[in-house]
């Protein structure tokens, strides 16, 4: 009986250690600040950093308004073998995130939580393949590139449905 208790204490200690180390294990990459046209220059600089290692996609991610100001419409999040980069991205409401697979694995971005994908309003994996699945935060399959426009304010967690441990957060303001 004493052995059983010792086992219990040891395993409980392990479990508590897991919780203790959780914050560091789930720590994310630095937040990529993305915003509105008010800080266009900063946005352009950071956007260029993000897409710098890829093809010439800057044209795809920005437009010019009537005052000749560059407005970032689309922010790129890369999926690498170690996860999404950046893991946290801040955008304005109405902006689009484009997830680009730069890894050796398949990528299926989708809203939290695995596997139901219902955290983002209106989303849900059961809608994939239906007419309701057009505007949900769910790639509904492995993709090389997937874009989604966020129309709801909030901190929206997402993950790769094919590798659930890889995830990130989109902060929509």
């Amino acid at each position, binding site marked *: *009986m004493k052995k*059983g208790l010792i*086992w219990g204490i040891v395993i409980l200690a392990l*479990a508590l250690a897991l919780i203790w180390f959780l914050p560091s294990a789930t720590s994310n990459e630095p937040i990529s600040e993305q915003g509105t046209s008010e800080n266009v220059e900063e946005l352009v600089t950071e956007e260029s950093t993000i897409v710098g290692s890829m093809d010439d996609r800057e044209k795809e991610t920005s437009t010019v308004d009537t005052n000749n100001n560059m407005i970032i419409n689309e922010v790129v999040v890369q999926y690498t073998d170690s996860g999404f980069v950046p893991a946290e991205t801040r955008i304005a409401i109405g902006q689009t995130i484009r997830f680009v697979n730069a890894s050796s694995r398949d990528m299926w971005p989708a809203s939290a939580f*695995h596997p139901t994908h219902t955290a983002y309003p209106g989303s849900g994996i059961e809608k994939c393949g239906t007419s309701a699945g057009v505007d949900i935060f769910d790639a509904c399959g492995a993709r090389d590139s997937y874009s989604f426009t966020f129309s709801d304010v909030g901190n929206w967690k997402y993950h790769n*449905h094919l*590798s659930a*441990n890889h*995830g990130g957060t989109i902060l929509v303001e």
Partner: protein
Amino acid sequence: MEALSLLNNRVLLATRILRVGLAFSFLYAAYASFVDPTSWAAFFPSWITDSVSTKTLLWVSGVGELVLGAWLLSGWRVTIASLVAVVGLLGIVAGNMGQFVILFRDLSLAIVAVALAVLGTVENSLVTPVEEE
């Protein structure tokens, strides 16, 4: 004496309920992984999926879960079965810290399995009447 007998019966009943409850989680996981393999394959760490196909992994883990569920239900060497469950559950949590928001339940199940491992050390003595000297 009557109180002790009552205690024995309650502990025996509680142990059996724990066994059924824990076994259900493994049996359901096995069933669900066959029904929706894509969702369940996502819980395997990438360093495993890089070297073993997900189909093989799902088959092995599914059969393992079925065996473990049946083992827990059988009542044979419950302590060992429970400790196997503890290792498996903690392994799932440790390998998917990014999904802790849904896997915290596995941590609870692991602690339940610890309790069952402790109770398993006395379950058989509760079932088998103690011989009088």
